[in-house]
């Protein structure tokens, strides 16, 4: 789950990471009021959107007076940045920067640990530095059994600054970031740029955070920050019912158990010339009510011309799925053909239950998919 810059900065403040919060404005008037506290200095107007590359897209502008603030706020509000419409900006005083660098913390999947990433080349996107000057990027693996003790924070900070004053400030920032990461189950914290100002003070001038969806149950305060698109709302509703659901654009509604099998099902639908309407993984636990709700979800999409059910029973039992299907039929009118493939744990019981249901049954995945593709083209 992603949050906005201004939300990240609120967390930074809670964790004693020095930052500049600024004011959030949704129109030109409030931007002008916010500027009245800054003038006559220059202000920076920053789009608040849940995506990277904001600067390049023109979502960050400097304004030197109230007129410019109004003008540039107007330009930014309503902007579409990688599919995200800007509906609020942050107005902050322009800051005197002596030096700027990059400080990030994320998960290293292969090393299975937290990694701290630093670069003296701050202010640019880290992907760009990685592409053009990889030698300017430092990576520090964190041993979960000790976290970031003073020595480690100091050694990391020494990769960014030479003077002990700035090293000590940065070391504290690093330790506080790690505490924030752990206590809120973040999967990414990025400060770009982390600056030394003209007085030698270290400040997080920007803030970007992503959280582990699997850990949101521990952190209602974080979950509460979510700002979802319509698409994400639908996906989340499915999730509360125990599914993984992703809306796609085709005509074959899919219900599969297991993410890998569901992905492979989509892959084969495309391989055989069809077009899936969705990704729907009904997950690892077998519960008839889930099947009913999954069928409701699929049949609510008017594009769906055929439903393909591909179940391989492991932890999900085929008899539960079959019972769910029959129950669903009693509750929902389904007017499209249903191709079903049911195999694995309790498959005999499952197939017996649906024997007289009128489904098109197949024991083979390729065959089932080919049949569904065929039906979707009628």
């Amino acid at each position, binding site marked *: 789950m992603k949050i906005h810059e201004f939300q990240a900065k609120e967390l930074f403040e809670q964790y004693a990471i020095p930052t500049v919060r600024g004011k959030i404005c949704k129109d030109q008037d409030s931007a002008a009021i916010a500027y009245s506290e800054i003038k006559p200095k220059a202000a920076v107007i920053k789009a608040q959107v849940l995506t990277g590359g904001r600067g390049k897209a023109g979502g960050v502008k400097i304004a030197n007076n109230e007129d410019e603030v109004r003008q540039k706020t107007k330009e930014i509000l309503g902007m579409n940045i990688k599919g995200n419409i800007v509906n609020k900006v942050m107005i902050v005083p322009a800051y005197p920067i002596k030096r700027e660098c990059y400080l990030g913390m994320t998960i290293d999947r292969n090393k299975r640990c*937290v990694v701290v990433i630093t670069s003296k080349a701050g202010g640019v996107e880290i992907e760009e530095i990685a592409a053009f000057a990889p030698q300017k990027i430092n990576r520090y693996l964190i041993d979960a059994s000790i976290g970031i003790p003073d020595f480690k924070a100091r050694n990391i900070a020494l990769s960014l600054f030479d003077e002990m004053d700035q090293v000590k400030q940065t070391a504290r920032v690093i330790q506080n970031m790690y505490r924030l990461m752990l206590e809120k189950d973040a999967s990414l914290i990025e400060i770009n740029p982390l600056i030394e100002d003209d007085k030698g003070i270290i400040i997080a001038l920007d803030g970007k955070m992503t959280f582990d969806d699997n850990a949101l149950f521990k952190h209602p305060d974080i979950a509460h920050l979510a700002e979802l698109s319509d698409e994400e709302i639908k996906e989340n509703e499915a999730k509360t019912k125990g599914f993984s659901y992703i809306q796609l654009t085709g005509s074959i509604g899919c219900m599969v158990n297991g993410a*890998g099998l569901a992905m492979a099902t989509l892959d084969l639908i495309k391989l055989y010339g069809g077009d899936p309407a969705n990704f729907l*993984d009904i997950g690892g636990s077998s519960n008839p009510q889930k099947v009913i709700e999954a069928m409701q979800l699929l049949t609510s999409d008017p594009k769906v011309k055929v439903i393909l059910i591909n179940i391989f029973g492991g932890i999900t039992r085929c008899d539960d799925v079959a019972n769910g299907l029959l129950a669903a039929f009693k509750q929902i009118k389904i007017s499209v053909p249903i191709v079903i493939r049911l195999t694995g744990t309790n498959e005999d019981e499952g197939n017996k239950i649906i024997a007289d249901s009128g489904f098109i049954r197949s024991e083979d995945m390729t065959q089932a998919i080919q049949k569904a593709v065929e039906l979707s083209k009628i």
Partner: protein
Amino acid sequence: MSILINKDTRVVVQGITGRDGSFHAKKMKAYGTRVVAGVSPGKGGESIDEIPVYNSVWEAVHTKGANTSIIFVPAAFVKDAIMEAVEAGIKLIVCITEGVPTLDIIEARRYATLHGVQIIGPNCPGIISPEKSLVGIMPGNIFIPGHTGVISRSGTLTYEVVQNLTKAGIGQSTAIGVGGDPVIGLFYKELLQMFQDDPETDSIVLIGEIGGDAEQIAAEYIKNHITKPVTVFIAGAAAPAEKRMGHAGAIISSGSGTAQEKWKAFEQVDVPVAKNPSEIPSLLLSQLKG
């Protein structure tokens, strides 16, 4: 022979009194696995299908000689359950539970590694060495003993692949679902090496997914360390970008982690890649003959 588990594997089921825990404890026992104990704090003294239940893993280890644990406890308690198993002296932990926070698994895995304990999972279907031991939730009936090792990030897709192998008469030495989360225990590199070292394994099937670059690293590892033939399938070629495809780890991010990249990595080191899981048996057999 097999890797990780065999006839001597003595399993304790953590969370045996839950719905899934009790269901699969019985299934494993019925398959022939030596399920020696279950754990459920406060329910010590009870039994499930004649499997004695203890309050702690320590008791299960010290009373019944358990050496392997399978975890079914809810996600919020997985970190604690893994650490309990490690401290009690368990040597291999299979974690079925899905939805475990990544930092929890990082911390628990670190503790396990420092004590030389191996973890499979979380969010995985477990391990099976056909006709020897099942420590997982796989449907045992689709597996037959043989000489092909299977490593997979997926659950049900593994069954699909194995069913194809079995129908083609290709038995399995051991099949492992490593789990679909971003951070997991044993992964391609370690397991490829175990199969390489296992005299009864003559070939390997690797079932990958989009997300991360573990497959690319595996391809490199195969090139340098694995002499046995490997056949690969990657799920997610049709997945849209920036979407979590069910598995927390299966996400194409900033254009990286695509199936196409991964195909290329294997093809560059001459490892054949199936585009349909049903092609795997023939690709495998042609290598074994070739």
